[in-house]
């Protein structure tokens, strides 16, 4: 029921007749000409300033030493920091996402404040702060315990803490939206079976929320991986820094930037494909596949966009602005055991 999905190329315009076809051909030719002109300009500019297309600017990337000495260690650091931060952020997200749904105001309000605070301030500031707070913190501890403390926060720790706090807060909102989207009958049925609140959350709500939100969670991990490049600014030896080292050594900024971008894009695109595949699988199984983009309170800059980027024809229920709510009220999926009413 929406424009792009019903039929990709025939809603906004008629099937082209002979005249229109001729016109489109002209447009295509113009586009090709413009693209070629742009490309030629870029190539010529790169060539003129610093001779960036010369073979010796590119050969470093064909030598195994470049990879073993610079790129692979950098990539290991990037992926390592992202992996550690992912684990911590998921834990942080679950704790604070559930905390925001607590029945007790003294849990709910502080959890909400923490999440909102870390989502409102730039990640880079958080990383700077984490690096700078080590000294004063050590002094304070020295003062309190009368034992000399000396705390030095290394870039890796700062990056991981920053990534954890920011992405954990966004994940908290994703988890919250997912838990809210589980049909009410699920928790009611669980309570009527005599489960405690913690059991309902752990055994009924959270597993369903995680399944529903898996695509959104993975898209947030793409954001996390991209943000790990901020470590470059605080001299964390991650992949981007490895490439700038090569670029300074070989004077090949443009080739280095291109190779680096290709690696990031390859990693991120495969994660995105995974999210799309999960989303389609969920839809096939009749589960609610929630896009957090429309969920209340979720940072749509990170959440709506992945949802929008997933063109899954006819299986993806995103023709209403509130897919979470609408899908959430439909417990008739084949494997939603709590949805059916007990017979007799």
């Amino acid at each position, binding site marked *: *029921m*929406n*424009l*792009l*999905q019903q039929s990709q*190329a025939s*809603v*906004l*315009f008629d099937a*082209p007749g002979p005249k229109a076809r001729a016109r489109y051909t002209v*447009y*295509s030719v113009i*586009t*090709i000409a413009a*693209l070629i002109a742009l490309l030629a300009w870029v190539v010529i*500019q790169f060539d003129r*300033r*610093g001779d*960036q297309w010369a073979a010796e600017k590119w050969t470093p990337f064909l030598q195994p030493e470049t990879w073993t000495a610079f790129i692979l260690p950098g990539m290991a650091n990037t992926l390592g920091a992202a992996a550690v931060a992912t684990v911590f952020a998921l834990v942080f997200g679950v704790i604070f996402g559930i905390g925001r749904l607590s029945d007790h105001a003294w849990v709910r309000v502080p959890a909400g404040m923490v999440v909102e*605070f870390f989502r*409102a*301030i*730039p*990640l*880079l*500031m958080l990383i*700077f*702060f984490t*690096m700078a*707070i080590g*000294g*004063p913190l050590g002094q304070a501890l020295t003062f309190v315990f009368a034992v000399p403390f000396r705390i030095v926060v290394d870039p890796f720790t700062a990056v991981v803490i920053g990534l954890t706090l920011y992405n954990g807060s966004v994940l908290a909102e994703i988890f919250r939206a997912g838990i809210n989207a589980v049909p009410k009958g699920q928790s009611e049925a669980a309570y009527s079976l005599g489960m405690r609140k913690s059991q309902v959350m752990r055994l009924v709500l959270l597993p369903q929320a995680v399944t529903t939100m898996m695509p959104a969670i993975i898209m947030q991990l793409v954001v996390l991986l*991209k943000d*790990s*490049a*901020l470590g*470059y600014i605080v001299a964390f030896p991650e992949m*981007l820094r490895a490439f*700038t080292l090569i670029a300074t050594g070989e004077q090949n*900024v*443009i080739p280095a*930037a291109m190779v*680096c*971008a290709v690696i*990031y*894009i390859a990693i*991120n*695109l495969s994660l995105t494909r995974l999210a799309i595949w999960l989303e389609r699988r969920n839809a096939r199984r009749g589960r609610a596949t929630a896009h957090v*983009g429309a969920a209340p309170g979720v*940072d*749509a*800059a*990170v959440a*709506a*966009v992945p*949802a*929008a980027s997933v063109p899954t024809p006819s299986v993806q229920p*995103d*023709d209403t*602005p509130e897919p979470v709510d609408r899908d959430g009220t439909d417990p008739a999926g084949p494997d939603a055991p709590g949805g059916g009413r007990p017979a007799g």
Partner: protein
Amino acid sequence: MDDIFNNLDSFVDGFSWTIRLTLVSAAFAFAIGVLLTAMRVSPVPLLRASATVYVETIRNTPLTLVLLFCGLGLGNTMQLQFSDRVEWDVFWLAVVGLSAYTACFVAESLRAGINTIPFGQAEAARSLGLTFGQNLRLIVLPQALRTVIGPLGSVFIALTKNTTVASVAGLGVQEASREMRLLFDQGQTDVLVVFIGFAIGFIILTLPVGYFFGWLSKRLAVAR
């Protein structure tokens, strides 16, 4: 608190660059984003493909790399110069990177908005004889825009926060986070107080914007 008031200069100076970066980049990003969206739904396959390639490429590249490319690549290597004064030169280089990056997210949001428009709208427009351009301009885009005001607000807030990356090497725009880091490095001030001060500055920038876009999206919501 003295640490804030004694350094009010760097505070105000930093946030003035942050605001300038945000507003100018937002304007360009919106324009490019609308153009990309129009290309992505256009009848010419080549336009569609090139817009898709652009969006997918830039969206999956870290912003740090994009801005680093603007600074070291466009600025140092290609010697692209926008202004004689260094601070404005790096400002415009940062605007190039931030707009190019944010435009992808604007385009993605708008495309999601076009997805929500009922089939009948464009069909009716076509049956009245509107061309693709008229259809897009008069029927589809206005409705899509009104639907995605909320997500666009989030993109704007993300842009505000992303301006901090413009302090990256090779650019070094004197925006808020860089001023904060300079204060940290001088070591004359209380780290926690300065951090809270700058954090509040960002919250003041982003919170009203969030509420404003929320209010606007409710007010302009398309009744269906």
